């Protein structure tokens, strides 16, 4: 215990929701402040920048819709990562899994002889399977050979990027693309409907919300989720209780890869209508989903809020580009700063600050 002025700072084992909220908000505020310094160095008034962002994303319906559109892949991949992290599978590869989902969806959309009515369901299924398989490889390496999952999942992202590049430059390059590196446009039956007046592909949004709820339910209320929670809390106890640790880790790996794959399906079928360059498909959603999952603190329902928040950060990147002539990649600065402050304030959760003025000595 330490005294700082009239405050007493004590260690505390319990983290009440209020403190979690306060510390997380403080981290976000600090990130905004630090980003403000970046704006200022760039020659833009931070006050003006934040006012513009606020007005253009939260108060403008079209700006808000943009935030929601960006939140869709973040939510799908983020829920997957919440599951993965709860099951001690350190998946940094949602980006690659998302791209694999996009590849599978494009393959089904362009080449599979599926009746029009089944086109979209088949694309989602294929996307889930492809993302899941892309995560299954590191999961098996971890479980059978003890290979570090952080490294393998991360490195497979680059493999996925080059797989996409190869496909669009090589075998899948469109006949109508006139030298550009992308595939042909998907047939109409392979395109997701949008909410009129926006670019929000609502079926993916609905699916994401549904899966967030389902993930919460499975974790909290079922005999499948229970061993995941035990493993995530104390792997040693899971072993002691003869829990099927292999299937727990493998299961969360498949689910998290699959969910990221679904996000990829949504992007190509709801936004682009074709498979194109990896960095055009994703904007780093798979990496930002790590922040989404972290902020959600292991709760799939929390990811709904945090995905929306990070979606709005992306939308504010658009605003800054258009209204303030700043590069869109400013969002990377934002993301980086947010993650930095979140991680660095993590320890503070375990301290309690109490108002206790020192009494005067006689």
């Amino acid at each position: 215990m330490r005294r700082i002025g009239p405050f007493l700072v004590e260690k505390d084992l319990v983290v009440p929701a209020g403190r979690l909220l306060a510390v997380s908000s403080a981290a976000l505020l600090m990130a905004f402040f630090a980003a403000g310094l970046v704006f200022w160095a760039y020659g833009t008034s931070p006050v003006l920048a934040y006012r513009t962002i606020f007005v253009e994303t939260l108060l403008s319906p079209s700006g808000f819709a943009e935030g929601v559109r960006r939140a869709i892949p973040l939510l799908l991949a983020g829920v997957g990562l919440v599951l993965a992290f709860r099951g001690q599978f350190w998946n940094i590869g949602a980006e690659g899994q998302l791209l694999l989902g996009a590849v599978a969806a494009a393959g089904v959309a362009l080449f599979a002889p599926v009746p029009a009515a089944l086109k979209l369901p088949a694309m989602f299924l294929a996307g889930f399977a492809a993302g899941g398989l892309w995560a299954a490889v590191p999961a098996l390496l971890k479980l059978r050979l003890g290979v570090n999952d952080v490294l393998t999942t991360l490195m497979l992202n680059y493999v996925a990027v080059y797989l996409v590049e190869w496909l669009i430059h090589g075998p899948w390059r469109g006949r109508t693309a006139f030298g550009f590196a992308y595939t042909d446009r998907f047939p109409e039956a392979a395109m997701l409907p949008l909410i009129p007046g926006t670019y929000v592909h609502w079926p993916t949004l609905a699916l994401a919300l549904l899966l967030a709820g389902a993930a919460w339910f499975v974790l909290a209320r079922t005999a499948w989720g229970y061993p995941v929670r035990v493993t995530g809390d104390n792997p040693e106890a899971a072993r002691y209780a003869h829990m099927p640790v292999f299937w727990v880790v493998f299961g969360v790996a498949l689910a998290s890869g699959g969910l990221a794959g679904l996000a990829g399906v949504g992007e190509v079928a709801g936004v682009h209508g074709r498979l194109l360059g990896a960095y055009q498909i994703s904007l780093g959603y798979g990496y930002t989903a790590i922040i989404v999952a972290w902020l959600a603190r292991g709760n799939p329902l929390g990811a709904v809020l945090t995905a929306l928040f990070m979606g709005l950060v992306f939308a504010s990147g658009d605003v800054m580009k258009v209204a303030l002539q700043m590069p869109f990649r400013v969002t990377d600065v934002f993301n980086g700063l947010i993650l930095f402050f979140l991680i660095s304030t993590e320890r503070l959760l375990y301290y309690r600050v109490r108002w206790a003025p020192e009494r005067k000595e006689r």
Partner: protein
Amino acid sequence: MTEPNALLTLKNVTKRFPGVVAVDRVSLEVYPGEVHALLGENGAGKTTLVSLLYGLYPPDEGEIFWRGRRVRIRSPQEAIRMGIGLVPQHPLLVRAHTVLENLALGMPRGFLFPTRGLEARIAELTHHYGFRFDPHAPVWQLSEGEKQRVEIVRALLQGARLLVLDEPTSVLTPQEARELFKVIRRMRSEGEAVIFISHKLDEVLEVADRISVLRKGRLVGQVTRAEADKAELARMMVGRQVSFERTKPPARPGEAVLELAGVHVTNDRGLPALRGVDLRVRAGEILGLAGVAGSGQRELVEVVTGLRRPERGEVRVLGRAPWSRRRARIAHIPEDRRRQGVAGGLDLAENLILHDYGRPPFARGPLLDRRAVYAFAREQIARYRIDPPDPRTPARLLSGGNLQKLILARELHGEPPLIVAVHPTYGLDVGATELVHELLIEQSRGGAAVLLVSEDLDEVLALADRVAVIQGGRIVGEVPAEAADRERIGLWMAGVGA
């Protein structure tokens, strides 16, 4: 006003934490050349009291006097400067560094490590107190007892006049504990003051000059060694009469429940840990397995509970391999209850279904029946008097004794034919120890086979019907408990005369 000769005086010291008064108006004096024991159960406030002395917290009320002068101890550095040294329960040493480097860390220093002058002083101190350790040995090579001596030397080097030993024997073998008591007596004769914190009556009676008993934060009694009476101390400490006799109806052993034949096991590092173990435990009897730490007990327990497979040999529990899908129910009271026995972030009720989460009544199909889970928890909490009684309390907030009750409630549920209890009373207070012993006896007399693994020979002799000794991965001796002779068992444990 304070007693003129006292080194340390506490007056009505109070410390509150949210929801509890951890130390409640405690007053006591410590004199030079005195060993003052603080006796109390876990959670009685002993550690909080020491933290106040060591400057980790300020007291909320009350006064502390040092050599007659009122002081406010704001930090451990200040405590050390005044001459208060703390020997923590678990040594705080840098494992990869040598003893000398660790000791140099605690010294006021300039830019360079002052190892040269230090070495001479260490040699002087160790010679004086009869310690034997190599100052150039890396700490990871030392035993727990040796590490503790390094901590003592550190405190003495820093000029401690009052040495506080926090549960010092909890990590020691009986022989190491005897060595420690010799050192304590030596320090007393040099005029040092010692505060000896413990919940073990016998050792307090052996080493202390004065005994202060704490219960629920209050000082409930203070006696000198001459006036002290074991039963009376126990009553003060626990708040009720305590029996030291374990009444144990005679064993009527039935069929063999656990059978090991020619079992060879390698440990995690690929080295042989068990080299041909034969062992049988029958229904209705307690087999006590004694041995020095690291003789193969852990691997034996793992192989019996199905967590590890043998290289060679047979392990059968009621005729089935313990790692098979259709294994018999085995209650396993684990060695490290916090690290192995619970998922600390999950609540009490959820920890109670660790084995049975997939079965009715807790699961209906894939769905958890939360009503059944919490009803079961309330029932077990009431039965085992687990505190706090809220089934939603995260398990990591439980004290050691309550955590063990939680584990017992879970493991003993459903009449397991085999109970494997590993150090089941390690670090527990008198009340909890009594409960564990009674439950083990009751279960065995009810027909369970009990394998009790303990480094505490007294516990083994008090509970077991038969005693087996493990040494170097082999069972080197086995005797009925009534014929057990401490000397012979001690020799077996040491690997002599097997």
